[in-house]
């Protein structure tokens, strides 16, 4: 377990641009400990979608919610699994895990955390409206042994169960029942529930104020059980969609941290007095998805057919994307072109296979002609504007590249809040998406993004494209119960090779995360882009 995170440890330490100042401040923060009445203002491009911890598996949402809610396990600075609400865990037999829970933990409303809350939350995460069904998909039952012990029975061997439970944020069963939120909000249908605007977790911060699209104010939980690097009284998350406004706010001192600095502003910020930047390659891959399932194009015109069902069309699209130029111009070198659906640093990443096919417009034109589209076709591309790095510019660039092979793109630039329901309803023909491997293991991508969507166990839960290959599914089913690490890795490599040959998706690049903060604030950049508030110091 430990070994596979060792390489990650290197990435996590941010490269400091003005290291002496930060080091001095850091030392002060640790030595001084108590800071005065203080507020940390964090700005990012998009708002969190909900306060319901099982309703939206979207990075900024779970990142902010992880300050309020906690899971059974968490990660340390080397991204190794460490206890959180669970003190320890061990397999009892092949399909049973036993978790000993942390005593004397209370929720924000004062009620005590116990095994019943764990059972309740896991079952809540299995509900139809949950976007976390995959993380608990292997679980058959949760048995409460006593107040502080649960035994979790899985349907099959699941060596990754503790890893997965790191994404299940524990709710108070009593609070959920009293407020009628025993099932997650149905985000796709824009349902509104008590848990959307209110929260009751065990985490270091409580929600003091929530104004959607404007601000989320968190105040420190004085009864927090865990250790904190600092005791910042108030944390405010501010969505500021315009990049120049976000950056100007940092320079003028209106915010303390920006967690998504666009590549074009990195140099400028690094040379600004009083601002430090930190960066890390992100464990996320950006790629394009197609609708494999519909018989006719849902949004576009190809004469009554769906061109994306033809492998040659997908190959044509894949080959016509000039990832190198996008990396150089749009990302200014802060990305790494890739042909893979998982990023380096994840278990299951295969460096030897990470070679992009040649960028070849002529070949792509021929492929389209062979597939019966010599004059191309038109299709809508759905593109969120306030998540990932420079998505709008990437989508525009790819639209121009598609026009070179005759594919006429109707570019649909929309906020993430409108984009995610489109995916969830599979109401998209061609889209850009970024995906990270939740527990740093390729199995997550294989199971949730690429497996045929069965509606069970969260298989293919994020397979918005309708990709389906029985041979691929068989390999994944084999791999996920394989206990031998090397054999499992090989099976996953084989599965990826199939998806790659099918051009299930058209991969683009992995991004480099850049945070910028005012001097005196130290926010470590985690490669999975969680803002881990317990590690943040401020002076």
């Amino acid at each position, binding site marked *: 377990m430990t070994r596979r995170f060792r390489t990650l440890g290197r990435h996590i330490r941010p490269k400091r641009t003005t290291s002496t100042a930060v080091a001095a401040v850091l030392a002060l923060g640790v030595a001084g400990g108590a800071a005065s009445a203080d507020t940390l203002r964090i700005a990012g491009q998009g708002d969190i979608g909900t306060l319901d911890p099982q309703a939206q598996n979207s990075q900024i949402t779970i990142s902010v919610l992880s300050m309020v809610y906690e899971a059974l396990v968490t990660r340390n600075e080397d991204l190794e699994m460490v206890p959180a609400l669970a003190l320890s865990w061990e397999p009892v037999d092949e399909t049973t895990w036993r978790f000993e829970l942390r005593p004397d933990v209370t929720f924000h409303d004062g009620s005590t955390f116990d095994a019943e809350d764990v059972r309740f939350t896991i079952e809540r995460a299995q509900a139809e409206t949950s976007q976390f069904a995959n993380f608990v998909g292997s679980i058959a039952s949760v048995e409460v042994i006593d107040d502080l012990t649960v035994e979790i029975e899985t349907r099959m061997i699941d060596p990754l169960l503790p890893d997965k439970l790191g994404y299940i944020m524990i709710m108070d069963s009593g609070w959920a029942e009293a407020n009628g939120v025993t099932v997650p909000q149905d985000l796709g249908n824009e349902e509104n529930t008590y848990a959307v605007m209110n929260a009751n977790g065990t985490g270091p911060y409580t929600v003091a104020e929530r104004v959607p699209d404007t601000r989320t104010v968190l105040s420190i939980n004085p009864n927090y059980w865990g250790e904190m690097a600092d005791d910042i009284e108030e944390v405010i998350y501010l969505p500021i969609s315009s990049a120049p406004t976000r950056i*100007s706010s940092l320079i003028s001192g209106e915010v303390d941290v920006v967690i998504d600095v666009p590549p074009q502003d990195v140099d400028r910020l690094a040379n600004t007095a009083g601002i430090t930047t930190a960066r890390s390659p992100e464990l996320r891959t950006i790629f394009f998805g197609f609708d494999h399932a519909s018989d006719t194009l849902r949004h576009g015109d190809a004469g009554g057919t769906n061109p994306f069902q033809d492998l040659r069309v997908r190959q044509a699209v894949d080959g016509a994307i000039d990832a190198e130029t*996008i990396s150089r*111009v749009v990302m200014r070198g802060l990305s790494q072109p890739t042909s893979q659906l998982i990023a380096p640093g994840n278990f299951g990443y295969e460096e030897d296979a990470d070679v992009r096919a040649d960028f070849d417009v002529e070949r792509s034109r021929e492929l389209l002609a062979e597939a019966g589209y010599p004059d191309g076709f038109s299709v809508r591309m759905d593109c969120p504007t306030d998540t990932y790095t420079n998505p709008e510019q990437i989508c525009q660039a790819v639209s121009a590249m598609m026009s070179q092979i005759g594919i006429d793109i109707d570019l649909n*630039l929309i906020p993430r809040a409108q984009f995610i329901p489109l995916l969830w309803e599979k109401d998209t023909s061609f889209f850009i998406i970024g995906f990270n491997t939740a527990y740093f293991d390729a199995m997550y991508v294989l199971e949730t993004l690429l497996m045929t969507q069965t509606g069970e166990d969260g298989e293919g839960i994020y397979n918005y494209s309708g990709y389906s290959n029985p041979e691929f599914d068989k390999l994944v089913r084999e791999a996920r119960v394989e206990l031998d690490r090397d054999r499992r890795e090989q099976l996953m490599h084989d599965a990826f090779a199939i998806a790659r040959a099918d051009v299930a998706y058209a991969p683009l690049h992995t991004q480099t995360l850049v945070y910028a903060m005012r001097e005196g604030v130290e926010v470590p950049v985690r490669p999975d882009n969680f803002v881990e508030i317990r590690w943040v110091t401020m002076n």
Partner: protein
Amino acid sequence: MSDPGHTPDTSPAAKSTAATGPGRILLALRSSPLVRSLRKDMVASAAFGVLLLLLVAAAVPDLFAPYQVFDLTQIRLMDAFRPPFWLEGGSIEFPFGTDDQGRDILSAIIYGLRVSVTVGLGGVALAVVIGVTIGLVAGYVGGIVDSILMRIADVQLTFPAILIAVMIDGVSRAILDNAAREDAAVVVLIIAIGLSGWVEYARAVRGATMVERRRDYVASAQLSRVRTSGILFNHILPNVLTAVLVIGTIHLGVAILIEATLSFVGLGIPPTQPSLGTLIRVGNNYILSGEWWIAIMPGLALLVLVLAINLLGDFLRDALNPRLK
């Protein structure tokens, strides 16, 4: 033009087109001292020349723009972020440089000009139609109708134009889906600008109408049983149009700025068919990183356009105002 009001039988041109209202005004303008005073006014004639050039470029951008900016096949990402030709790394191939996608900025400005001018002219035309009609009716009928219409105008005046435009944009968001809204963006903006700008016309026309309706020619028209609409549009309207022309010119500058503002904040024209405001918004992303020309060049174009319109508007106001003679 000593009297901009009723001049029924002094000019032969006017006589020949006696009943065709606006046509008579245009002819009167041509044979009037207006053109002569324009020639004398260096600033105004320069503004007129620049505006004429910009309007022609906006009308037939294909003739002026070196590249077809909406033709994606002509765009190369490799060409992105080229500076203007006078800076190091720039070339005359892209005189004002290129944007983040490799689009020629000069071409984008010319096509953007078309969108901006279309929205501006459309918005002004709508405001003129609404404002002039309300003004004529209020001024001619008077009484309770006048009171009601002018109170509505007063209420309307308390809303800034931007606010009304934002409101209309919000309504359009609620009833149209994203794709339809993008297609309808120009129309939405025209409606927003039209609905927010009619009050000034209504007030000016009402005032002029109240003066005109007491004149003898109106009385004689009434006695010969000309229909009220006939009196309003054929007889009174031509005599209040100078005021409308002056307000309209100034309003055109304002309308173009409203469009630019709304597009800049992302409520206007989408980046797929950029107006000048949209181009500035896109360029704003690169102001901090040093690629200033992406925002500044369309900004300068906007400045020149609106300045030319305003200078011409000032000139018209002075030239057509008898009290200043």
